């Protein structure tokens, strides 16, 4: 045990000595949460728009007014000639062109169908889709209000019957995307740091030749391994705490559930990521290799975890694959616990699966690594 402590101390001394590392340990989580928080959890907003009004009536002006007064669009240009709106898309100045056709007001008054033409830069399929949805919503809201004001008299005469929704949003009443995304970023950070550091840490000793010195030192192999792994785990938990603290202060994310339970589940999850890093280091000769392999694995773990892209919408085969991804379970645990305050009885299945993954990956990688040391 004393010998393990010595190794742990050596690791911390190494970190302390490296000025760049020391700064990075503090900066990486904060910068990541800060930047990622804004980038990932920003809703589609301020989509650059050009409007071509061929109707020029009070109706078309009212519609333009509504389109201009939403955060989703940024109406930057008004073009008079329909033939020129395409130019705005080509030059990348606008992403959407709205053409309000001549006769719009007349059609609405006579209950004739009218068509509003939209020209959409479809390169970014997601933004295009979301913006289209918002425009549809704005037009629909305009119509509903119009119906309401015009049918006030009819409503009283009980000729017209409206069906209206009353919406109640639980857990996240303002539908803040950051509440949902930032816990995911915390998980990604923890996964990334522990995997990378444990993958590179051991290879580094081998690369600069100090591993042999350690191996001939009077210390058992498993003690060496434990002594190397524990600082990585502590580092990961420290970074996670820093990230959560910063996210709470800066983004005011809710933490409804029990943090003690969360710490426990995080430690279980760490066995998977540290094991993964160890496995990578058993297969690589240089730090560069270790880093490449870790990134290669991490990107897929990230994309197939439900962090950015909802799993339910993937094709069946891809969905099955995600069941093999430990981060999938931990992302779910984190979000449910933070936002909804889910407890162990809602999350025990995920917890058990993580235990299983952790035990399997960790044992396998330790065996593999010890073989490699010999």
């Amino acid at each position, binding site marked *: 045990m004393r010998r393990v402590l010595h190794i742990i101390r050596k690791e911390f001394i190494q970190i302390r000595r*490296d000025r*760049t*590392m020391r700064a*990075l340990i503090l900066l990486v989580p904060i*910068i*990541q949460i800060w930047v990622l928080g804004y*980038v990932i959890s*920003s809703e*589609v*907003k301020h989509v650059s728009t050009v409007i071509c009004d061929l109707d020029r009536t009070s109706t078309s002006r009212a519609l333009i007014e509504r389109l201009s007064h939403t955060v989703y669009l940024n109406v930057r240009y008004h073009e008079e000639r329909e033939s020129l709106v*395409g130019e705005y*898309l*080509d*030059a990348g100045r606008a992403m959407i062109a709205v053409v309000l056709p001549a006769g719009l007001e007349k059609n*609405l008054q006579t*209950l004739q169908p009218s068509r*509003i033409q939209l020209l*959409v*830069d*479809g*390169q970014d*399929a997601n933004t295009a889709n979301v913006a*289209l949805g918002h*425009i*549809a*919503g704005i*037009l*629909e809201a305009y*119509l509903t209000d*119009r*119906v309401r004001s015009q*049918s006030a008299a009819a*409503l*009283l005469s009980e000729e*017209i*019957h409206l*069906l209206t*929704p*009353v*919406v*109640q949003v639980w*857990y996240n*009443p303002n*539908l803040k995307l950051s509440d*949902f995304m930032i816990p995911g970023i915390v998980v990604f950070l923890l996964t990334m740091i522990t995997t990378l550091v444990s993958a590179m840490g051991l290879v580094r000793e081998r*690369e600069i030749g100090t591993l042999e010195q350690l191996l001939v030192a009077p210390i058992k192999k498993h003690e060496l391994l434990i002594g190397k792994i524990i600082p990585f785990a502590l580092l990961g938990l420290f970074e996670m705490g820093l990230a959560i603290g910063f996210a709470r202060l800066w983004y005011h994310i809710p933490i409804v559930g029990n943090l003690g339970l969360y710490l426990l589940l995080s430690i279980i999850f760490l066995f998977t990521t540290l094991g993964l890093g160890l496995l990578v280091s058993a297969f690589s000769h240089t730090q*560069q290799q270790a880093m*490449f*392999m870790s990134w290669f694995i991490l990107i897929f773990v990230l*994309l*197939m975890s439900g962090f950015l*892209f*909802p799993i339910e*919408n*993937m*094709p069946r085969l*891809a969905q099955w694959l995600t069941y093999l991804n430990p981060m999938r379970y931990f992302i779910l645990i984190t*979000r*449910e616990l933070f936002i*909804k305050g889910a407890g162990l009885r809602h999350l025990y299945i995920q917890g058990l699966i993580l235990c299983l993954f952790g035990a399997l990956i960790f044992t396998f990688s330790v065996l593999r690594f010890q073989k490699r040391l010999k």
Partner: protein
Amino acid sequence: MKPRIVAVLQKEFIHIWRDPYSLLIVFLFPMMMILLYGYAITFDIKYIPLAILDQDRSPASQQLVEKLTSSNYFRITARLQDRRAIEPGFLHRRMSAVLVIPPDFDRRLTSRPETSVQLIMDGANANTAMIAMNYLKSFLTRTTLELNQGLLATPLEIEPRIWYNPDLKSTHFVVPGLIAILMMMICAMLTSLTISRERETGTLEQIFVSPIRPVEIIIGKVAPYILLAFLDAMAILGFSHWVFGVPIRGSLALLVFFMLIYIYASLSLGVFISSRTRTQQAALFAAMLGTLLPSVLLSGFVFPIASMPRVLQWVTYIVPAKYFLIQARGVMLKGVGFDYLYLPTVFLLIFGTLLLAVSVKRFKTNLEG
């Protein structure tokens, strides 16, 4: 002078060859990403799990539910008996939204001027909740218009024409971004790592005391990575073009020219990083913070710049990948020419030259000091 550079070149090629793992990953990674984006990843939200709490149980309420589920936005995963079942249902993730149809719905719908149904959303996943809510609202508006046919306005039809990517395929959008990230990874990350590895293992000093000039060292170390980045970009282009039909509408020669400019800018960034870091680990972290993350997050690769807060939008102006993406997408998807794209080119040239000048100077002082 020539043979000295060739020697450094040879040495670097040997380094790359000795490490087939990294080489394999550099080529395999983008292909896997394209496959993933092509097949697995979609932003569409469909089949949102919905629970029904029907307190009316009349033909009218059943009809409403049926009509709602005939689209593939929702699938009904639970039928609740009373309101107390809602909370456990949300916590066990059995549904994301509940539609509550009030008692008397049938009668009210035809006798009262206004009838309400309640939507209770699990707001934890803000994205899904927002889409579900918008869809339910517009569904109810449409139902209202149908109920009162001939009395109220007809819906405003939207006729969208999608340019550049008519099927809204995310692969088309992602491929130029992947090229930008991969080239940045190879040119900036690998070069900064290889230089800092020499420093860490102490071989950089050996090279410095040999009769090679710093410029020669840099060129010799960097040239193999230029080749590698270029080959990789071509492989990505070919694969995405022939397997997933990603178009190259403009001139290929122009695209290659833009790639070379971008390679120059990324290399300068890599050399700059390695001139300022001592260990591989530090170089790695710095490269991640300085090259990889900005290229992924702040370039417009998947996250639109217009939606970011103002400060981050300013930061994007110093991210080289942003400019390359404008160029690559312009040529590949829009098919526009150089007259639309000269500004980003000018910027990348200035960016690269500035960084290179600063780091060469730094290397020289290192050598002398």
